[in-house]
């Protein structure tokens, strides 16, 4: 009995020691406000405060009115918040892939971004969870019954559960990276990456499994999600590194970013190839419920924002300089992320575009051709709040942790 108590105390002491030896900078509230007061920094700080205030207002409105505060309807039950959640988790998976290049796969050139990217993957998924918590009607019930009565045939169950596990592994990996225990970081990083990829493809499966929504049904989304995650991760890598070095990149950063730009060029080419074939096979044969939806999508502005901003502009920047214009691609990555946001929005909206049309029409009334949706102010405010939260957490992280590669690398 006494031996067991000693053993237990030993384990507790070991855990305590493990936690207390995590290298964390001691900062106070004052340090948070201590940043170079440039106009750009001031603007970002102001936007973060504004977005967080919007988050509070949006959430308050939701708590009072429930889903009536949103623009979602019975025919269009998934709205902007689902798109924003996907946007954040795609970013997280992408950053996890980019971070894994160095510390899991051992490509030395990419080690300098590993810690930053893994931290980015943690804050983006946390922002995603913060947003989805106000879209799922009963998040606490979800936590309970996900465990008590798991729906193992549901892609949402797998996606949610695997993302929870993924976040745990990412945090453990990040702690080991901070402690410079590269071997343990590699093991947890690999596990986190594999679970993250499984979670992410399951998120694609949430849409791919919808037999009744011909535009989404099939293998496309589960695979395309992984591809677009990698693309998103590289855009974010450019944005993070651009801010870190204020566009005056050291040689090793230049080398890494040029390599990443070249990979991005290839990935964007593959994405455009996939997207073209998706549209072609969608239209071909004129199948009702699919061809008409594709034809409609091709006439909508958000789709072209997705294509032009998310794919074409960054691709042209890369191709025109053979990947060497990394400052250009830093700006191109902002445009790319706007495109990626529309990509997520389109995916959610397009899935629900076609009315199921169970003849719910009254006399002398034509059935609606398309299901209309526009996000409400509350949805927009919560979405921007998610972005504010993400930026705040990342900023606090840069103060708390050393996100640069350790010298010993």
């Amino acid at each position, binding site marked *: 009995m006494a031996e067991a108590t000693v053993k237990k105390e030993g384990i507790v002491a070991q855990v305590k020691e493990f936690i207390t030896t995590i290298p964390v900078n001691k900062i106070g509230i004052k340090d948070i406000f201590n940043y170079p007061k440039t106009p750009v920094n001031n603007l970002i700080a102001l936007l973060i405060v504004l977005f967080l205030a919007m988050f509070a207002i949006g959430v308050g409105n939701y708590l009072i009115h*429930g*889903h009536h505060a949103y623009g*979602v309807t*019975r*025919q269009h*039950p*998934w709205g902007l918040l689902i798109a924003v959640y996907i946007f954040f988790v795609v970013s997280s998976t992408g950053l996890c892939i980019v971070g894994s290049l160095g510390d899991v796969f051992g490509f030395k050139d990419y080690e300098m971004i590993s810690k930053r990217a893994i931290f980015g993957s943690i804050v983006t998924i946390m922002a995603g969870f913060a947003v989805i918590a106000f879209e*799922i*009607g*009963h*998040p606490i*019930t*979800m936590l309970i*019954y*996900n465990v008590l*009565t*798991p*729906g193992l*045939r*549901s*892609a*949402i*169950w797998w996606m*949610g559960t695997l993302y929870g596990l993924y976040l745990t592994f990412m945090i453990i990996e990040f702690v080991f990276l901070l402690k410079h225990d590269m071997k343990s970081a590699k093991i947890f990083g690999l596990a986190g990456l594999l679970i993250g990829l499984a979670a992410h493809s399951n998120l694609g499966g*949430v849409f791919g*499994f*919808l*037999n*009744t*929504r011909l535009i989404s049904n099939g293998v496309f989304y589960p695979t395309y999600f992984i591809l677009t995650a990698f693309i998103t991760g590289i855009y974010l890598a450019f944005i993070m590194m651009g801010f870190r070095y204020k566009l005056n990149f050291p040689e090793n950063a230049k080398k890494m970013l040029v390599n990443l730009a070249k990979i991005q060029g290839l990935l964007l080419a593959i994405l455009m190839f996939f997207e073209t074939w998706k549209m072609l096979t969608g239209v071909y044969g004129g199948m009702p419920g699919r061809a008409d939806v594709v034809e409609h999508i091709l006439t909508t502005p958000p789709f072209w924002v997705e294509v032009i901003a998310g794919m074409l502009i960054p691709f042209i920047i890369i191709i025109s300089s053979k990947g060497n214009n990394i400052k250009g691609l830093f700006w191109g990555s902002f445009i790319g992320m706007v495109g990626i946001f529309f990509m997520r929005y389109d995916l959610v909206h397009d*899935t*629900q575009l076609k009315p*199921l*049309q*169970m*003849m*719910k*029409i*009254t*006399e*002398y009334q*034509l059935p609606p051709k398309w299901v209309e949706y526009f996000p409400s102010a509350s949805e927009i405010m919560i979405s921007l709040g998610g972005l504010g939260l993400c930026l705040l957490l990342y900023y606090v992280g840069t103060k708390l942790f050393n996100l640069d590669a350790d010298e010993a690398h």
Partner: protein
Amino acid sequence: MARYGMALDYKNCINCKACEVACKEENGVLLGADKHRIWVGANNPDGVWPNLDIASAAFMPSQCQHCEEAPCEEVCPTHATYYDENGVVRVDSDKCILCSYCMNACPYDARYVDDRTVTVDKCTFCSDTRLARGETTTACQNTCPTKVRTFGDLDDPESEISILLKTRDHFSLKAHLGTKPKLFYLT
């Protein structure tokens, strides 16, 4: 233990909407929840006057199809949607997290959010109300003046619905999706 289904002699429907009213009254469907739990669709006649296809102007009463392979049951992450002992597709409001996945997965647009429980609800073949009281008909069937609906046990060869399905041609909606609906439209 039964396997409940419903046959609809839809060409007899006169669009009086008594079934919608009876359903709302029996199951406490909130005001404004129009065409949510059950509905009568009205199809405009095909063609251009005077060459109108009058036969195409039928009314089409519909509701949850109580599929044997229900997509809404498959996608539910917490098993809130389940088949009860009579094969009726039901929702356990205690377990529903309102992720709305079932609303997106249902090919029949048969699910809606009940503002009282803030969970997803749907037609239950009056399982909580009339059947629970020991009655053998649903509210929509009971009130129909032209006897469009016949509700009963598909496993009982002597039931009215089984005999109807044996003697009349019928079709199901979106049967190509493999959902095996238990609503049958008599032709």
